[in-house]
């Protein structure tokens, strides 16, 4: 998995997840978000447009990240999930926990 970050002109930190978010690498994403929170970032978008797979540990990591962001008074949004990945969120009802947009552009609107 590759994780890269870009700051949107409106101050949103966009985190791109390349590859797979799975049990073996989920801590990398958690560390990136923790560092961002420590730097004072409060608006975070995770872009899954180039993510092939998220396993249950990856979903668990996102739940944990969501709690941390919320505890810091921030907001987390997700975007770019393909149809299969979207179905994992729906099956596990996590689509009710996260703000999920179809595209990063849609997620950034009014963020």
């Amino acid at each position, binding site marked *: 998995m590759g994780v890269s970050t870009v700051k949107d002109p409106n101050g949103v930190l966009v985190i791109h997840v390349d590859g*797979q978010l*799975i*049990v*073996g690498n989920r801590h990398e994403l958690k560390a990136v978000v923790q560092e961002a929170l420590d730097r004072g970032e409060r608006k975070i978008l995770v872009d899954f447009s180039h993510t092939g*797979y998220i*396993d*249950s*540990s990856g*979903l*668990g990591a996102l*739940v*944990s990240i969501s*709690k941390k962001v919320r505890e810091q008074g921030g907001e987390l949004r997700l975007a770019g999930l393909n149809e*299969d990945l979207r179905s*994992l969120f729906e*099956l*596990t*009802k*996590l689509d*009710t*926990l996260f703000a999920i947009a179809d595209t990063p552009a849609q997620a950034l609107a009014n963020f």
Partner: protein
Amino acid sequence: MASPLRLCVRRAPVTGPAGLLVEVSLRVPSDLGCVEETVDLVTRHCLAGEAPSSRLRFRLRVVLAEALANAIIAGNGEDPSKWVELRAELTDELVRIHVTDQGPGFDHTAIPAPIRPEDLECCSGRGLFLIRQLADEVRFNEKGNSICMTLRRR
């Protein structure tokens, strides 16, 4: 970083109740770094000729990854001296995967589905829940250290 993966793949055509049956079996080290490569390898063997974007491929990858991770973490406790045995039975109609760890087993009926609103932020049990949702049939052995997942091809 994953340790080098040493898989032994045996494809032995045998005759089962439903006709020709191909078996693929392999031993997987108790190393989470091996999960992705194992899933790739087994999916390739089980679904040769299937469209890369097929829903069956996705379902198989999910149940394989979740069963392997459960076996390595919860079953074998990531003990490098222990292995996970994986056996796939393939027919024209179905793919049946057995994943067996060397742990003491567990009571699968005691794992609740973490989908109630108040349980969503609890992180355990989601993998088994996904397996139950995406496989057509799920069975465990009596000891609870072996899961059998059946996916119908159509």
